[in-house]
């Protein structure tokens, strides 16, 4: 087993060792020490609007079910495991139940996770305590809701969600403010893609503003413009007309906060829009906020927000991206459009349409990055060099009240992620009670 010193030695302030992406033992430790402790995004409460509604997913590779309690309407996150012999109880991606029932011996569970009934119960001894939570579908130790975004932690200790997220809470507020009714809805389906690479490659990529002109070269025309983005008249300018990256990528800036979180500044198109659909949306938004405030609200000061380690929210084509590590060299990512309640239907349809272009498994954008992640996984097998460089603008980051800020194309965000990585990984911690018992 890797010692704390060995783990610490794999992360330097401006570089990380290639073992972080290659070593299955490190991956197992990440699941235990990072995903086992952090607040992980599970889903949005609008995915389970009615009592008895559920969705299934996994956290740190463990199957879980997010369900709205039939009794009190609370949203629970339960381990998706029968309290009897351990089979996954709920085998559908989503649905509605009165009780969860195990396929094997028919044990059934309330939507709170409590054991409801055991067939032929008399066969168990008198000391069989049906109220023992271990015989139910065990709830995760901690679950919290912010603005409808449901997070859970596999650990019973650690900071509360608001403390853990800190300045990131603002980004959720910003998204909610974009909805004329003040609420968002995650009901537009999901893009699911996998790549043969390490999960951290995807997390690094989200606020990597150095890559777009190169990785996404195939989406630009000769004038350096990308195809038209949602709600804007022109495509994003990735390069100047000679094909050189333009300066806004640096100027937009990047912010890094505790626990590996951060966001990058807005893209030039953000907050702008035109056409009758946008006008109708703007009118609805002004109805909520008034014209002045609506303008401010639309001018979201960030583009991609990383909630380390498993969530990204994007403001421009509003979506949620969830990172699901499968193994050291395989990762699944799920992308959900964030629909704005109170916006014209056509406006939300534009979000969906645009997300097909950017993040579908057949998208024009994300697929080139996925190929880069695959090549990283392959290239880092080589022994010629040991380190992965994250040194861009190293030493130029500026402290702020909340963390640090840097140039847009700085690799500050990755350095910040690996600072959190090292903090988590070098703190061996006894497994929490819920795991040990």
């Amino acid at each position: 087993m890797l010692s704390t010193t060995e783990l610490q030695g794999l992360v330097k302030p401006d570089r990380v060792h290639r073992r972080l992406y290659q070593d299955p033992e490190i991956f197992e430790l990440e699941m235990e020490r990072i995903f086992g402790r952090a607040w992980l995004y599970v889903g949005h409460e609008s995915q389970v609007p009615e009592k008895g509604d559920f969705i299934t997913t996994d956290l740190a590779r463990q199957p879980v079910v997010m369900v709205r309690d039939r009794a009190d309407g609370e949203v629970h996150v339960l381990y998706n495991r029968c309290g009897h012999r351990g089979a996954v109880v709920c085998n559908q991606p989503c649905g509605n139940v009165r009780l969860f029932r195990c396929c094997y011996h028919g044990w059934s569970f309330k939507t709170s996770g409590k054991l409801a009934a055991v067939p032929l119960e008399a066969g168990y001894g008198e000391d069989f305590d049906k109220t023992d939570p271990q015989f139910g579908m065990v709830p995760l130790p901690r679950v919290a809701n912010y603005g409808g975004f449901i997070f859970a932690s596999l650990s019973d200790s650690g900071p509360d969600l608001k403390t853990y997220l800190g300045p990131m809470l603002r980004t959720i507020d910003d998204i909610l403010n974009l909805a004329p009714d003040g609420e968002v809805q995650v009901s537009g389906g999901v893009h699911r893609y996998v790549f043969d690479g390490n999960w951290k490659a995807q997390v690094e990529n989200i606020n990597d503003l150095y890559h777009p002109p190169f990785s996404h070269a195939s989406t630009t025309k000769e004038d350096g413009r990308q195809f038209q983005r949602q709600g804007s008249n022109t495509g994003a300018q990735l390069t100047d007309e000679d094909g050189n990256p333009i300066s806004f990528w640096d100027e937009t800036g990047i912010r890094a906060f505790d626990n590996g979180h951060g966001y990058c500044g807005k893209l030039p198109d953000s907050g702008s829009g035109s056409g009758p659909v946008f006008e109708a949306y703007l009118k609805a938004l002004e109805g909520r906020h008034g014209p002045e405030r609506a303008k401010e609200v639309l001018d979201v000061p960030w583009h991609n927000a990383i909630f380390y380690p498993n969530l990204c929210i994007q403001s421009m084509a509003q979506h949620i991206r969830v990172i699901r590590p499968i193994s050291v060299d395989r990762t699944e990512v799920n992308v959900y459009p964030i629909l704005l309640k109170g916006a014209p239907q056509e406006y939300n349809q534009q979000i969906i349409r645009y997300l097909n272009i950017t993040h579908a498994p057949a998208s024009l954008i994300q697929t080139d990055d996925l190929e880069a992640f695959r090549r990283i996984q392959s290239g880092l097998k080589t022994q010629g060099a040991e380190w992965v460089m994250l040194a861009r603008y190293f030493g130029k980051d500026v402290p702020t009240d909340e963390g640090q800020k840097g140039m847009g194309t700085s690799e500050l965000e990755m350095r910040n992620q690996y600072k959190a990585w090292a903090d988590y990984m070098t703190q061996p911690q006894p497994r929490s009670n819920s795991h040990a018992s």
Partner: protein
Amino acid sequence: MQASTYTANQPVVENLDHERIQKFVYHESRLLDERRFEEWIELFDDDATYWVPAQIDQQSPLNQLSIFYDDKELMQTRIARLRHERIHVDDPQTRSVRMLSNLEIESAEPGAGYDLRARAVLCAIVFFQQKQYIYGGRCEYQLRDRNNALSIYCKRVNLINCDSAFHPLVVPF
């Protein structure tokens, strides 16, 4: 020449030129196999759509995400990217071969905006980044038969695993 002999919902239509339509969809499929994308697009009408839903029995491409939902303009953008020298995901080029089978043809309802419906089982074998993938599903074509020429008004591909997680999909099905 033979008529379609079975339909699920529509009355059996006699006298459809099965062989002509079979030839058309085989050709369409081969253009993709051979990466003759510009010719492939030419088979689609200007108001056409190419749709690969992301859910079984997906009702709407507008309110739910899709794997592909392209109008002609987006198809052209997609093809332009496939021709771009720096499309990393398609380097080296993806190879694919499609088998179409179980072709069924019926005429469209009056006023449908197209003339014929053709369904075929698709088995696509794709060699992508040194690995081979198999995709299966059913293609549904809405075809126009005007001025003695067939054209595509809508092609929908219902993959049996449409709601699963995918490796990058580069070439349309």
